[in-house]
């Protein structure tokens, strides 16, 4: 019998990935060394690495990074806390569902950065409007993820708990939340990348510190190596956050293995 079962089973392995990455860097560096492109437009990887090193050594990088991290952290935690509460309420009760679903669908599609000028008017210049923008950007996708997760809790588990007379608060904590956890964690993935996007854009609009502000300033001064160093930092930051969430998922969802 000829084999017909070929394909449709892709598996990602490390060697091709490393090779592709190394090739990209090498070609990029070669282009830079050969001066085929004006280094002002496309600095070489070595130049970017040097810029990164200088920034790290002078401490400038850490100042910006800390500022951005505090904004992201504050906004994400506030938005997530609110989103968890509202998401559960929308997933559990008819009244909050009727009100919440319509409001969330109206506000979710607004790019939250468009609200920054208004928030600055309301809250004054400084950290608060930036943190609030991030919190708003995090809040809505969290509500949607949590409410979706709560909706997907197997009905039979809730019925089981009810038939054993388990109280509501215990059903919420011991059945609904663990069951919705996968959906909540994948919501974290979306909300954390939204938070990164918003911190950078709000810093680009109105801040003198933070990675976003640093990138804008570097661009204004045509320091493209610094600019790309900032971009590299953002990429690493995004990776670290994604890795942390994957780690959380593996730990919290071990029972699914």
């Amino acid at each position: 019998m000829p084999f017909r079962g070929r394909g449709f089973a892709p598996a990602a392995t490390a060697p091709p990935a490393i090779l592709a990455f190394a090739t990209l860097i090498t070609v990029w560096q070669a282009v830079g060394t050969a001066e085929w492109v004006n280094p002002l437009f496309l600095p070489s990887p070595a130049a970017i690495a040097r810029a990164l090193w200088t920034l790290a050594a002078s401490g400038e990088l850490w100042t910006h990074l800390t500022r951005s991290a505090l904004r992201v952290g504050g906004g994400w935690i506030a938005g997530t806390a609110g989103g968890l509460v509202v998401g559960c309420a929308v997933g559990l009760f008819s009244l909050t569902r009727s009100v919440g679903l319509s409001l969330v669908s109206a506000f979710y599609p607004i790019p939250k950065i468009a609200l920054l000028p208004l928030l600055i008017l309301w809250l004054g210049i400084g950290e608060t409007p930036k943190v609030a923008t991030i919190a708003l950007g995090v809040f809505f996708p969290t509500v949607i993820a949590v409410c979706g997760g709560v909706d997907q809790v197997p009905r039979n588990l809730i019925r089981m708990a009810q038939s054993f007379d388990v109280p509501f608060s215990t059903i919420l904590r011991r059945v609904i939340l663990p069951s919705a956890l996968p959906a909540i964690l994948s919501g974290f993935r979306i909300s954390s990348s939204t938070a990164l996007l918003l911190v950078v854009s709000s810093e680009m609009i109105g801040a003198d510190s933070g990675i976003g502000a640093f990138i804008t300033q570097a661009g204004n001064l045509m320091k493209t190596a610094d600019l790309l160093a900032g971009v590299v930092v953002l990429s690493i930051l995004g990776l670290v956050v994604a890795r942390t969430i994957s780690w959380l998922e593996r730990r919290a969802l071990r029972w699914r293995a």
Partner: protein
Amino acid sequence: MDLLAQAIGHSFDGLTVLADVSLAIRSREVVAIVGPSGCGKSTLLSILGGLVVPASGQVLIRGREPPGCISPIAAVFQDFALLPWRSVEDNIRFVLDHRPVGPAEKRGIVADALRRTGLSEFAAAYPRQLSGGMKQRVGIARALAVRPAILLMDEPLSALDSQTRAVLIEDLTRLLDAERVGVAYVTHTLDEAVRLADRVVVLSARPGRIQDVADVGIPRSERARPSAQKELAALQARLWASIRDGAIAAEREVARA
């Protein structure tokens, strides 16, 4: 303690599901409820368990709870309804945690329930590691852990393959004789009904009414013997004769959108 259903009637959105069903589950009595698909067996069990309020009629508890009873009524589910993120032991503990039971007593109850269902070695296993038969044993152990007077079982063996089912019928035969519980046992399988029940109640096609009641004269522990086969086969034939028309009608029915 007896559980009495008096003139139960119920409908969902104008679809009458049960009409005037009166039924007594006496202590230590196993009542099988059979009937064509969709005739309201599960609904009846939900009503008995307090998960659905009947449109008419009432469910009464007569007599006192037996000594040591933690919850008078417990349920076993067709799809097991185990919490996948909890070990076998913790699944059983789940139905005890909100009860006024001390930690030492709780450990004792859990160990006892595990032992009686042959699960002692599997206390630390997770549901995904267990076969269907073992999962349902956990479901049964969990129900027994609250020391109920009445056990509600909705097609507890339907999700199992026929060999596992045969093994569990043997186990249940022993368990039901040893436990001091009354049982309402919903099943599609007449063989299961005549092997396990003291009394078989036949519901008609929807709206379910009591169409026939048959007592099984042979003691449960003797029903596997060759000498009992003829009588059980005759009983099965009688039950099938009263279900057949309803089953054909149910099978040919087009689901309402």
